[in-house]
């Protein structure tokens, strides 16, 4: 399909023995347009990380299909994890060289490495080792790594959740800037509603059953902040819908065991 980066159809994923299965993803279907930034939210246990793992090929799924269209990109996927996952015994530059796709020429990849390190604000750390960098810097290296393979889709699994709020805020702004500059397709998972609404131009909300509960387009201009009325209203609406979903769940279980998410 024109303009689609990744297409997911009727994705089903479950755990456990037949007969006693836990359904984690229940016929998930959506397409992601090229250069869009999709945020996926859901409560813990709603299967959002599982979804990402399935897209990344780390987990098998029961039925359905996942199609990643190659376009002009060098590789299909980039992945930014919650923790940086850098090889501690290689310096930063070698860490980025480690993920060079087979068909990409070494010199070309090296040039990309340097370009993206510069883009995330880490121009001169190539020779340093991970332990010499702060958590935020390591995470930025992770982002540079995801970018330097020039993927069709960049998957991001709650990349800022382990950082302190101040650093996380900076990183969000950085991410938006990088996204606008590179026009990469990004799928961003988070449990933080605020973050999801701030970043995405489309928000997908998963519920406790592994369904897509909401799929909302966010047309608001960026930067989005809470001093603007339009944004506050929009955000309030999203939170309201989220609570609706939680309420439904409470009815089903018959007790309130759900922790506060936001």
């Amino acid at each position, binding site marked *: 399909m024109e303009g689609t980066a990744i297409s997911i159809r009727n994705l089903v994923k479950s755990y456990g023995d037949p007969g006693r299965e836990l359904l984690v993803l229940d016929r998930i279907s959506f397409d992601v347009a090229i250069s869009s930034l999709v945020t996926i939210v859901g409560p813990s246990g709603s299967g959002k990380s599982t979804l990402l*793992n399935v897209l990344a*090929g*780390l*987990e*098998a799924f029961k039925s359905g299909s996942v199609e990643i269209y190659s376009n002009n990109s060098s590789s299909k996927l980039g992945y930014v994890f919650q923790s940086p996952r850098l090889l501690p015994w290689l310096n930063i530059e070698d860490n980025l060289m480690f993920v060079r796709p087979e068909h990409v020429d070494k010199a070309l990849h090296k040039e990309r490495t340097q370009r993206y390190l510069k883009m995330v604000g880490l121009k001169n750390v190539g020779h340093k080792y991970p332990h010499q960098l702060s958590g935020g810097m390591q995470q930025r290296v992770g982002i540079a790594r995801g970018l330097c393979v020039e993927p069709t889709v960049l998957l991001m699994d709650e990349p800022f959740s382990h950082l302190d709020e101040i650093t996380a805020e900076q990183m969000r702004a950085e991410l938006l800037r990088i996204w606008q500059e590179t026009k990469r397709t990004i799928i961003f998972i988070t449990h933080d509603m605020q973050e999801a609404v701030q970043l995405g131009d489309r928000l997908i909300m998963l519920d406790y059953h592994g369904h897509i509960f909401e799929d909302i387009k966010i047309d608001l201009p960026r930067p989005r902040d809470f001093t603007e009325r339009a944004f506050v209203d929009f955000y309030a609406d999203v939170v309201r819908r989220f609570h609706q979903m939680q309420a439904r769940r409470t009815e089903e279980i018959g007790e309130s065991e759900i922790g506060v998410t936001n």
Partner: protein
Amino acid sequence: MSLVADTSVPASPSTWAGQLAESLRGVFLHRRWITFLVIGVVWQVTAMIANIGLFPTPATVIAVSWQYVITGLFFSELGISMIRIILGFSAALLLGTIVGILMGSWRFWDEFFQDFVILGLSMPALIYALLCVMVFGLGLTAPVMAIILGAYPFVAVNIREGVKSIDKELLDMSHVYAVDRWRLVRQLILPSLLPFILAAIRVGFTVAWKISVLTEVFGGDSGIGYQIRVDFASFKMRGVLAWGILFGMVMLTIEYGLLLPAERHFARWRAKVKEVI
């Protein structure tokens, strides 16, 4: 492509009896019996086929072991050896604890004893055994001295670790609340040290019996080591193997049936206790 599931390890039982029960349950693990069977068969077959005459079959070794047990020889010799081991080990424990406490508490003593301990750890038990036999001759002094020399470094190192790991923050807190000396020792220091003391005992014991056997081999007129030498001198390999296996089994039972469970029981709150020295 599937993600490997995280097999969660069941929590290990916290009582000593529970630990023992778990060890026993482990004994009946089917895979290890397969290994035993395979080893036994291979041994038996090679010994028979190769027919070198010198290498005994498992059956022969078992028969000889049985002989030693039935005639009571094993038990009398074991008793003699155990006396030496216990004496030497206790002395080594005492010396090692003192040195360990000194090393753990003051930097001066740490550096003072450093080389002796390292030397002691790396010297083979053989040297201690031979030296002590030469200097002290037959009798009780030789094995006891050899054990002291060879085992005290292992004890010292463990006690040192224990002393260094006593939580300074808890000590400070006790100071603020002016907790009296005796209570401090009884309720803070000893419990903190206990797992390390047990580890020291186990490691010390392991080293002690190995050294003791060596002294008996070279300069004994009784004991397990002496019996081993007698059989060795008469080229009676079945005898050497029999003594080795019998004695080894007793020692392993003490280590894995007594010392290790005790250590695990008292060290519940620590990370895994490693079975290697």
